[in-house]
């Protein structure tokens, strides 16, 4: 049984169609990046899955249960975080976590330990006794994630978890999510941050104007749409002659060069990538310091599908 299933999920806000017969199944233990522009229907889908808004038509199941009819069973092993979370202003971080921990049935000696651990994980230990009204956006975000992880759920439904975080916070969030994936958790992650999704998720679901455009593994999508991009750092900027040679290489579709850095869009698989790198070094004489697959691959794909 898939932990998250939607069947022909449709939602109207008045006359506005926010979700158009969305059907998606999330397999157990996978991390799915839910991508789409603003107003695409990402938050609406997530809110329906968490039982916050009703669908106009269609069905949603979490853990095999309808979150509206059986919220206790549907949301039992689920950790949710939606938008930038808000907390009761007079509660401190410990109060917040203890409150939601109690509602989920974590007993007292264990709860105290878990709260301490999760505050450390969220780097909020120093602010454990500070009122949440004094928290910055990033701190609220971290407390929201801490709350979602407190009961060690098997399913995580997260809406823009890196929103409002500083660069260090984003890296930490990414590492935390990677860790969750390693532990076999099912993650449904709505995000604008394509690089985060590419780094963390196995599959990507792209949505636009309420319609699911595609749902597949990142590499399959890249192959399907022939979008492979590598970023190459060079010791010296390439000469005009060298750039001309790069353009003439068989697998290269396009390139972008700026100072010591190049982004090369090429056609093919890992073997093609190896050949390309060899050609850059041996045949063209570029001094390659490092290279990596580019997040732009997903970006290209995203723009390609959304524009269509």
């Amino acid at each position, binding site marked *: 049984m898939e932990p998250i299933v939607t069947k022909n999920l449709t939602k109207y806000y008045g006359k506005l169609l926010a979700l158009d017969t969305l059907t998606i199944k999330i397999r157990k233990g996978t991390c799915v990046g839910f991508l789409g522009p603003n107003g695409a229907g990402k938050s609406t889908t997530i*809110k329906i899955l*968490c039982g916050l808004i009703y669908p106009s038509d269609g069905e949603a199941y979490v853990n095999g249960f309808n979150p509206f009819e059986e919220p206790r069973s549907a949301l039992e092993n689920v950790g949710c975080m939606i938008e930038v979370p808000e907390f009761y202003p007079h509660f401190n971080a410990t*109060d917040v976590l203890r409150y939601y921990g*109690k509602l989920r049935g974590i007993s007292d000696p264990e709860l105290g330990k878990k709260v301490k651990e999760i505050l450390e994980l969220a780097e909020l230990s120093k602010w454990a006794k500070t009122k949440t009204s004094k928290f910055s956006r990033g701190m609220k975000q971290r407390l929201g994630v801490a709350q979602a992880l407190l009961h060690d759920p098997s399913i995580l439904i997260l809406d823009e978890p890196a929103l409002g975080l500083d660069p260090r916070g984003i890296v930490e969030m990414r590492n935390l999510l990677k860790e969750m994936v390693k532990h076999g958790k099912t993650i449904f992650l709505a995000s604008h941050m394509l690089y985060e999704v590419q780094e963390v998720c196995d599959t990507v679901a792209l949505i636009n104007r309420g319609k699911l455009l595609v749902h597949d593994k990142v590499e399959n999508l890249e192959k399907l749409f022939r979008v492979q991009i590598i970023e190459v750092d060079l010791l010296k900027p390439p000469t005009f002659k060298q750039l001309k040679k790069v353009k003439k290489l068989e697998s290269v579709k396009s390139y972008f060069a700026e100072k010591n850095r190049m982004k090369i869009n090429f056609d093919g698989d890992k073997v093609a990538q190896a050949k390309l790198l060899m050609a850059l070094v041996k045949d063209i004489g570029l001094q390659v310091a490092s290279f990596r697959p580019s997040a732009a691959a997903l970006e290209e794909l995203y723009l390609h599908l959304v524009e269509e």
Partner: protein
Amino acid sequence: MTPSSLKQAATIMRYELWRATKSLRLIGLLIIVTVFSVLAAKGLEGRGNATAFGKEFFTVAPFLLIIVVGVWLGGDILATEFERKTGYMLFTNPIKRVTIVAGKFMACFVSTLLSISVLYLIGTIFTLNNYGWAPLTILGSFGLAVLYGCAVLSLTFLFSSILGVASATVVSFFSLILIMPILGALLLSNAGVEPWFLLSYSAGTISAYIDPPAQRIVSTQTGTNYAYPDFTISVIVMLAYVFVSIILCIIATKRREMR
């Protein structure tokens, strides 16, 4: 494992009371009740006997204070979850919305009971101090005041489940303190109809119970006068307000979306 709904309601009640304490809302309320009660009792000193004192003290004080208490506690209790988006955290827990309403209602009821107890305690202490004794009917009046407080809370919860924070508070306060009493007075004076179905009219039993006049219905040349509301009917009306309002509140809370 998710605890039973009853345990979850008890957790919500405990944390709502904790929240009211931390925000100084409960303490502020108790201070208002105490100051108002002491001032009212001081102002009524010199009444002929304990019954007259009690009857006057328990006329204005409960009517006004219970409304203030109910609106103060319940006006924003549900609306805030939707408007200030704290519901994104609360409603995504494995909990039924009816449990959330029950827990919050119990917390407000405990605070209301505490406030009414302070009011009656001060009234009784002043009666005993001034006259050496206090009528036992104060206990019955206390029971009616608690029931009225419960009905006020239910109605406030209903408004809070369908309106925003500010509008729920304003609508609750003015409907209880202004609209219902004015409507009752108009019905009584212009149409000669006893407004037994209005909550504000039923609240008249709180003071009347201390020393009810010999005759409830008095016929005069201008029509029929009602000295006080019928006790049985008033209790039924107040209970009806409690149950109907809270049922509607649960339905509205279940249907309300967190957009």
